[in-house]
C-alpha cells in the first residue's frame, strides 16, 4: 500500500530510535493536520473523515470495492474496523467505508440446510451463542462465540468480521502505523526480537501474530467452509485454508458471504477450552476445539484444532493420528498432548504457550473421555 516516502522514513526512524512502542510526536501532529477533529469532539481518538456507502447487493458491494481499491474498507459489525480507523493503524487511511448492512435479503441468517448449517456473514456472535440450533448441534461453535469477548462486543461482532479481522499484534496494530512490518509491505517482524509474549509458537513463516478469530478453531474442527464472492464469481474454501501465514486468502475486492458448517456425524462429541489473560473472554493465549466420534471407548475419528498459537488455526495432525483406533487412557492422552507441541518454535517470551497448549489438549481429551 502506498505510503509517502518521507512519511515512511520518519516512522522507520522513530521505530528504530525506541525499543518499545512509542509515538513520535510528529506523527501526532501529522494526524491533527490530516483530519480536523469534529467540533466539540470528546476524544483525540475521533474517527477520520470517510464516505459511507451501503450497497444493496453483494455484486454491487464487490463492484464498489473494485472501484475504490485500497481506498475502500469493508465493514460488517465494525468492532475491528472502527478501532483501526480511530488508532490510524492502517498503512493507508480508507476514504470509503462500505457497509454490508444494506444488503437484501439480509446476511444475518443462521439456518439449518440439508447437509448442515448456513451462517450469513453478518450473523452476530451473540446470535450464534444464543441460537438453540447452534448450541445443541454445534456446541463448540456456540461456546467459542460466547467466549470471544464481552457481551457488548458479541452483540455487534459478526462471524464474517471475526474471520476477517486484523491479526493480533501490538506492532502491526500500533497507533499511528509506527511499525512497517511484513503485513504492511515492510521487511521486518518487530515481534520476533521485541515483546512477543502473545505471539505464535507454530507455523511462523512470515508473520508471528496469531490468528485473531475466536471461532476459527471450532469451525475448522467442524470442517466448515467459507463461501467467498468476488469479481470473478464465487468460490468456497475450507476454514483451515482460508487463513494463510500472512493473513487470509481474500482478494482486495472479495467478500465473505457465508460460512457453511456440515452436520457433525451422529454421536460426535465436541469440547472447547480457552485461556485468556484475565479469563476466557479475552483473546486466546491458547484455545482448543476437539470434535470426535468415540464408539465403545475407542476413538474412531478426531479433529484437534488449536487457536492463539499460530497465524492460522493449528490442526494437530500428529496427535490425531496417535489417537485414532485407540482408547482414551491416561497414557494415550499424555502421548497425544505431547505430540501436539512437538516441533514448536517459541520466541523469547512465549515459551509458556507450549505448556499451555499441552495441558489444554490434555484436559480437552480427558473431558472427551468422560
Amino acid at each position, binding site marked *: 500500500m502506498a505510503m509517502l516516502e518521507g512519511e515512511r522514513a520518519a516512522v522507520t526512524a522513530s521505530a528504530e530510535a525506541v525499543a518499545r512502542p512509542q509515538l513520535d510526536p510528529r506523527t501526532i501532529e501529522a494526524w491533527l493536520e490530516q483530519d480536523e477533529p469534529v467540533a466539540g469532539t470528546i476524544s483525540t481518538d475521533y474517527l477520520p473523515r470517510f464516505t459511507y456507502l451501503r450497497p444493496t447487493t453483494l455484486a454491487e458491494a464487490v463492484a464498489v470495492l473494485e472501484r475504490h481499491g485500497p481506498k475502500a474498507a469493508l465493514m460488517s459489525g465494525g468492532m475491528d474496523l472502527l478501532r483501526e480507523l480511530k488508532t490510524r493503524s492502517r498503512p493507508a487511511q480508507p476514504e470509503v467505508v462500505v457497509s454490508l448492512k444494506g444488503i437484501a435479503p439480509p446476511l444475518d441468517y443462521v439456518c439449518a440446510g440439508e447437509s448442515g448449517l448456513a451462517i450469513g456473514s453478518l450473523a452476530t456472535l451473540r446470535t450464534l451463542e444464543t441460537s438453540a440450533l447452534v448450541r445443541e448441534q454445534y456446541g463448540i461453535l456456540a461456546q467459542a462465540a460466547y467466549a470471544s469477548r464481552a*457481551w457488548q462486543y458479541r452483540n455487534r461482532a459478526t462471524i464474517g468480521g471475526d474471520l476477517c479481522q486484523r491479526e493480533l499484534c501490538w506492532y502491526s496494530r500500533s497507533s499511528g502505523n509506527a511499525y512497517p512490518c511484513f503485513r504492511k509491505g515492510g521487511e521486518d517482524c518487530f515481534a520476533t526480537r521485541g515483546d512477543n509474549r502473545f505471539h505464535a509458537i507454530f507455523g511462523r513463516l512470515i508473520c508471528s501474530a496469531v490468528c485473531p478469530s475466536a471461532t476459527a478453531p471450532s469451525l475448522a474442527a467442524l470442517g466448515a467452509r467459507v463461501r467467498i464472492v468476488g469479481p470473478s464469481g464465487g468460490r468456497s474454501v475450507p476454514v483451515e485454508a482460508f487463513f494463510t501465514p500472512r493473513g487470509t486468502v481474500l482478494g482486495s475486492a472479495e467478500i465473505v458471504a457465508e460460512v457453511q458448517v456440515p452436520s457433525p456425524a451422529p454421536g460426535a462429541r465436541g469440547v472447547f477450552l480457552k485461556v485468556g489473560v484475565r479469563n476466557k473472554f479475552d483473546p486466546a493465549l491458547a484455545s482448543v476445539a476437539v470434535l470426535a466420534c468415540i464408539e465403545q471407548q475407542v476413538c474412531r475419528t478426531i479433529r484437534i484444532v488449536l487457536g492463539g498459537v499460530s497465524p492460522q488455526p493449528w490442526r494437530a495432525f500428529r496427535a490425531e493420528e496417535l489417537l485414532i483406533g485407540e482408547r482414551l487412557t491416561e497414557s494415550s492422552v499424555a502421548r497425544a498432548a505431547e505430540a501436539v507441541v512437538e516441533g514448536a518454535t517459541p520466541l523469547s517470551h512465549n515459551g509458556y504457550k507450549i505448556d499451555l497448549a499441552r495441558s489444554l489438549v490434555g484436559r480437552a481429551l480427558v473431558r472427551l473421555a468422560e
Partner: protein
Amino acid sequence: MAERIELRVNDRNQVVEVEPFTTLAECLRNQLGLIGVRVSCNQGDCGACTILVDGQPVNACMELAIEAEGRSVTTIEGLARNGHLHPIQQAFVEHHGMQCGFCTPGMIMVARALLESNPAPTEQEVKEALVGNICRCGSYPKIITSVLSAAQTMREG
C-alpha cells in the same frame, strides 16, 4: 456529507444531523446532551459508554450514529421514573457500587439488560455479563452485590 436521521432516545423521538463518521457516543453526548454516556477508552474495550440499542447492550463509541437510524436507544438518563431512581441505580447507591463513578452508567446499563432477560442471575452470571465493563477503582465486589441486590428487589416487585 451530513445526514438527517431519526431515532428514539429514552422514549422520545429525536431528529439529528450526523456525519457518517460520527459515533453514536459523540451524537448522544454532543448533540443530545446525554453526558451519562461516558467515553473512556473509545475503542470498545472498557464498556463505560454502554447503552441499550433495542434493549441490547452495545458500546456507543463503536456504533456509527447513521446506523442507529430508526433504533430505540436507552441511556442511563432514561432509567429513572417520575423522580425515582431505577431499582438498579438505588441498589448501587445503597451498596456503594461505585467509587469514582465513571464506569457506573455502563455497569448499570449492562445490569439492566441482564435482569431483563434473567431476573435471578447467579453471581457467576453477573460476573460474565459484566466482563466488558472495567472499573479501575476495583469496586467489582460491591458492584456485583449491588446487581444481585437489585435483582432481588425487582423480583419482589
